[in-house]
Every structure is written in structure tokens, then in C-alpha cells.
């Protein structure tokens, strides 16, 4: 058994014999991965209703029908409140958005529906800045319900709106005479239909006239695999990357601690090259990291149905290159660190930053555009994207060759720099 193998074996054995640390290294990522997979991953079967407050200053038939339609929509949990109370609830974070429907909204909205030159009524939306993402969703749903209600009112029963439009056309001298006559005929026909529906009692409350969504959608999850998207695959990849990086930090700090001990003197007194001593540390760290990745994904497979639907070889490759990268990073930390205490704090901050930029906590698409571009050069993103590719995206080996090469190359560079910078003599 060569000295190199003996040192590697010693480090791996010591890590595995520390059952408490081992348990934490395995249990913590599994628990957090499970939590994040359950909470953040994928579309839930039944979305939670968005708390939404409405202030009706109009009190018209149209505004009440809009509120009624939104109340029936499962996406909202609507409360009709006075204005001050509604805004106060937003301020306290109890509701995401409060919409103020202004006085005269119903009449003005019906008129604005047909005339671009008419002043549009304004709905003020007071929103919780910490839940800004819900604002866009509420705007979309508001648009749908208002369009349906206002158009139904215009075409289905609000004679005043049609009369207003007809009078405007009749007074418009600049309009072509032929076009004016056509428009007046159209309004007349609409009014006639409205009158007939009401006089015959055939007005259908369930399907009032007006605009309706002219399409329906059906959603398809797009993966290469035979299974649907498993959100745990991504959350476990993220947490694996995070905790393996933290293990790398401990590896570096452990080396700094060892330098304070007689053990380091004994190693230095042995006929061992610097490459043997430091290289064995990298090799041991890589093996331990690989074992941990295997353990964490085994839990993901057994307990949460995660599958390596793509290249198994690619999965092993991503795991191995990321493990090597982590060990090299740990050695670099030991090389540039002065004291274990200071180094640990600094390295953990760096690790968490890398993890965040890699998209482990929140998806990178929510980042600003410049930051999204920057994350392409962050190794944690290579690792997470690599794991995603060979698990739920069901990609082949070719899809992860580039991230594997990048991680391996970076690992070699970090190792070389670490060995060069490492303070060999105290």
C-alpha cells in the first residue's frame, strides 16, 4: 500500500467513522431537499387562493358582477372592504393586492370598450411589494373578468351604453356618411335584439352575451423522460450541491486545524512530497463527496421517486467532477486561509453565494438579466444543471459533457493554485 493510498484511506475512514457528522451530511440535505421539493417544485394540484381585497366605490351593477365573478374564481380569496381597511391589510401582508374600483367605473368602462378616444376609468392596485409576483397574476385575472362582465353588459342589457355610442356616431360630422349609416344600423340592431330578449323573457342569465375567452388551454410537461416532472429531482440536486460544498469547506478547515497539530509535523517528517500529502487530501475529499452524493440521491430515489432518466454515466460523471471540484476548492480554502475560525466563516459565505447564484434556492430565471448571464460561469450552476439534465430532463451523456469538462478543468486549476499557494512551512 503506497503512502498516497494510505493517506486517502485514512481520511475516508476517519470521515466515515464520524457517524454524527456523516449523519448530518446525509440527513440535512435529504430533509431540506424534501421540504423544498414539496414547497417550491412544480405546479401544485390545487393552488392556494390569492388573498385579494376589493373596494367598490362604484357600487354599480357592473362592479358588483365583477366582484361576484372574481369571488367564484378559485384563484382568489376575495374580501370586499372599505378602502382604508383594504390598504391596511395589504400593508400588514394579510392580502396581496387591494383593487379600488372607482366611482362611475361601470358606465365609463362600457363606453371605453368601443371608443379608444374615451377616457378610461382607472383601477388602483395597491400591492404588497414582497409578493410582487402575484400582481401580474391578479392583473391577468382582473382583465379576464372585467372584459367578460363589461362586454356582457354592453351587448346584453345596458341600453344606455349603446345609446351613448349611437348618439356619438350620429353627432360625428367628420365621419363618412356611409360608414355612419352602417354604424347606426348596427347599434339599432343591437338595441332591437336587447329589447326582444327582455320582452320575450329569453335573456339567458347563465350565458349572457358578450366577450368570452375564445380558447381553452391544456398543459403538457415537456421532458425527454417517460415520467412527469419530479420536483424533488431539482431540489435534491440543489441541496446536494450545497451540502457537498459545505463538506469541501470543512475539508479545508480540517487541513488548517491539522497544521496546528503534531500530526502535521509527523507527515512533514515522512519522505512524502507536497503533491502526495495534498493530492491525497483531494482524492479523499472526492471519494467522500461521491459517497455522500450517492447516499443523498439514493434517498431521493427510494423515498421521493427521483429517477436518473437520462445517462447514468453522465450522472456519475457530473457527480465525480463536482466532487473533485469541491475537494479542490477545499484545498484552496486551506491554502489561502490563515486561521481555521476566520476561514470557516469566510468560506461559508462564499459557499452560500455560489449556491444562490447556481439557482439552488430560487430559479435563475427570476434573476436580473445581467445576473442570469453571469451565472453561466458559476460552477454550482454547471453542477445543478448537469444533475437536472440526467435526472428529470432525461438527457444523454452529450448534454453533460461540457459541464463535466468545465468542472474538471476548474478543479485542476484550483488544485494547482492551492498546491502552489499552500504554506508548507509554519
Amino acid at each position, binding site marked *: *500500500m*503506497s*503512502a498516497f493510498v*494510505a*493517506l486517502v484511506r*485514512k481520511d475516508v*475512514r*476517519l470521515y466515515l*467513522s*464520524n457517524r454524527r457528522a456523516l449523519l448530518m451530511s446525509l440527513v440535512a440535505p435529504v430533509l431540506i431537499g424534501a421540504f423544498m421539493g414539496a414547497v417550491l417544485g412544480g405546479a401544485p394540484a390545487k393552488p392556494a387562493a390569492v388573498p385579494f381585497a376589493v373596494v367598490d366605490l362604484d357600487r354599480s351593477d357592473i362592479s358588483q358582477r365583477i366582484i361576484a365573478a372574481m369571488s367564484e374564481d378559485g384563484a382568489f380569496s376575495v374580501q370586499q372592504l372599505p378602502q382604508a381597511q383594504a390598504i391596511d391589510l395589504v400593508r400588514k401582508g394579510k392580502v396581496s393586492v387591494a383593487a379600488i374600483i372607482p366611482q362611475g367605473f361601470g358606465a365609463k368602462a362600457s363606453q371605453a370598450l368601443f371608443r379608444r378616444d374615451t377616457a378610461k376609468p382607472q383601477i388602483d392596485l395597491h400591492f404588497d411589494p414582497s409578493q410582487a409576483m402575484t400582481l401580474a397574476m391578479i392583473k391577468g385575472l382582473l382583465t379576464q373578468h372585467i372584459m367578460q362582465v363589461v362586454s356582457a353588459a354592453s351587448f346584453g342589457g345596458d341600453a344606455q351604453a349603446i345609446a351613448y355610442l349611437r348618439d356619438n356616431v350620429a353627432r360625428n360630422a367628420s365621419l363618412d356618411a356611409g360608414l355612419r349609416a352602417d354604424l347606426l344600423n348596427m347599434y339599432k340592431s343591437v338595441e332591437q335584439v336587447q329589447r326582444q330578449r327582455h320582452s320575450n323573457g329569453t335573456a339567458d342569465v347563465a350565458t349572457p352575451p358578450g366577450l368570452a375567452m375564445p380558447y381553452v388551454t391544456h398543459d403538457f410537461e415537456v421532458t425527454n423522460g417517460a415520467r412527469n416532472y419530479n420536483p424533488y429531482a431539482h431540489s435534491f440536486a440543489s441541496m446536494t450541491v450545497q451540502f457537498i460544498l459545505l463538506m469541501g469547506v470543512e475539508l479545508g478547515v480540517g487541513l488548517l486545524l491539522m497544521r496546528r*497539530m*503534531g*500530526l502535521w*509535523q*509527523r*507527515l*512533514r*517528517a*515522512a*519522505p*512524502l*512530497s*507536497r503533491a*502526495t500529502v495534498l493530492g491525497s487530501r483531494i482524492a479523499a475529499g472526492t471519494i467522500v463527496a461521491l459517497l455522500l452524493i450517492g447516499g443523498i440521491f439514493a434517498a431521493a430515489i427510494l423515498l421521493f421517486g427521483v429517477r436518473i432518466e437520462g445517462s447514468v454515466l453522465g450522472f456519475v460523471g457530473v457527480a465525480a467532477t463536482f466532487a473533485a471540484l469541491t475537494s479542490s476548492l477545499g484545498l484552496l480554502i486551506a491554502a489561502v486561509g490563515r486561521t481555521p475560525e476566520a476561514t470557516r466563516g469566510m468560506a461559508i459565505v462564499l459557499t452560500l453565494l455560489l449556491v444562490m447564484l447556481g439557482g439552488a434556492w430560487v430559479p435563475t430565471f427570476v434573476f436580473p438579466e445581467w445576473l442570469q448571464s453571469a451565472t453561466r460561469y458559476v460552477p454550482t450552476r454547471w453542477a445543478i444543471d448537469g444533475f437536472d439534465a440526467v435526472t428529470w430532463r432525461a438527457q444523454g451523456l452529450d448534454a453533460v459533457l461540457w459541464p463535466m469538462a468545465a468542472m474538471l478543468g476548474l478543479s485542476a486549476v484550483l488544485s494547482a493554485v492551492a498546491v502552489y499557494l499552500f504554506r508548507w*512551512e509554519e
Partner: protein
Amino acid sequence: MLVARGLCKAHGNLVAVRDVSLSVSAGEIVGLLGPNGAGKSTTVAMLCGIATPDAGVVTVDAVLLAGGAHAAKSLVGLVPQELALIEDLSALDNIMLFGSLYGLRGGLLRSRAREALDLVGLGDRARSRPATFSGGMKRRLNIACALVHDPKVLVLDEPTVGIDPHSRNHIFENLETLRSRGKALLYTTHYMEEAERLCDRIVILDHGQVVADDTKEALRARLPTSAARRYEISGAIDPALLADLHARGIRSKLIDDASLEQVFLHLTGRELRDAK
């Protein structure tokens, strides 16, 4: 066996060791003494190949010692002052690990490890972990780890710190056995009685330089007689006549020779060094 010539080492602007030369022959125990900050640790580091001298050379059995993976390092065994043991490995596994760093393997490694354990009296605790050992047992295991590759030179850096007299005596017996087997031992200590008992020769370092290198007897001879010896005088003596006692032929009995500690303090002064 171990020869150092003109060793110099500076840490930044601080000169830790200046032109230190010393030697240890086979079958000899040489004590390396010095106050705190005298340069003992730096000297030991250079003698073991841990630190590279700025100037000077170290040879072991006529082979030049260098750092890194140099083969001459296999001729030296180091017993660090701090316990250099892995608490989670058994005593035998500890020794085998360090043996494997010197290229030992297989049956030879195992038999050497057993021999080293037997020598320090831990043969029956081979499978026990150091965490279960007393301080003295750990110190003995610390020594065994340095012996497994059968070095010609053993450098011991205060190997008896914090242990009881029985364990210390056991270690002394081990070291005397090694001396009788022809090993060259360099022994650094702060305990003068240890150097007194074990060492054939004493090297005293101060301010990074060798201030004395001689046998115990020769070192004692350096002290002024009045400062070195105590006499028990019998009979009624007039104090005024004390200076002429010998000349007058009054019978006297030497009850205690000068201690090595007195020699040490005489050579290095009484100033505390820790405060510097």
C-alpha cells in the same frame, strides 16, 4: 550518525537559528536544551527535514537530508511534542499508518508495528483506540509511531510532557534500550533531571546559537566552585574561618554535586523568556 553543520534559519527579520552545529553518534543520547525561544523547535524541524535551512547542511548516516520526499528522511524518526495520534484509529492502525508513509507494507509492516508496540509496553492494547489511553500510554504510543520504520536517528521533542513518574520511567527505559541497540537519539526537554539521567552529552542553545556542547561532567566543571558545590561541615566552625577551611585541613563531606539545572541557569541566565 546525525550531523548538522552551520544551520541558519530566519523567520522574516527574526533570526531563529544562527550557525548551529551539532552531532549525535550511534548509541548516544544527546540532550538539546534551551530556554523558550532559544531555537530548539526550529533546529529540530531542520534536523528532521521539516524546515529547509537558509544555510548549512544536515546529514544522516552520511546522506544529505533534504525536504519533500527525500529518502534520507526515512533514516529519521520524529516524536513531536504534541501527540501526533489519530484518536479514531486503533493503536496498531496508528502505527501501521505511519509505517506505510515510509514505504512499509504487508507482513513487514505488521510485524514492525507489533514490535514497536511491544517495545513501549502496549502490545496488549493493540486494538484499543488512543482515546481510551492514559496520558502516559499515549506518549508511549507517540514514540512507537516514530519507531515503526526502524530509523537510525530518533528525534524526541519533549516526549514526556504531562505524564506521571511511572510512565516517564518506562519511557526512559525504552530510550535506553534503543541506545543500547545503536540508535542515535536527540532529546529536547525542559526537565533537567531527565537530561541528567538520560543524556550522554548536552547541547545548550540560547538566542539561536549553541552556547555549550559537552558531557555533563565537563559542563559541571565550567561552573565556579563556590557556586557549584554544597558541603556539610561538621564541628563548631567560626564563620570567619570558613574561607580557610580547606586550607586548614578541616574534614568535609560532599553531599550534592552541582546540578545540571545550575549549569543551565549559569549559561543562559535567569531571565524569564516567556514574557518576550
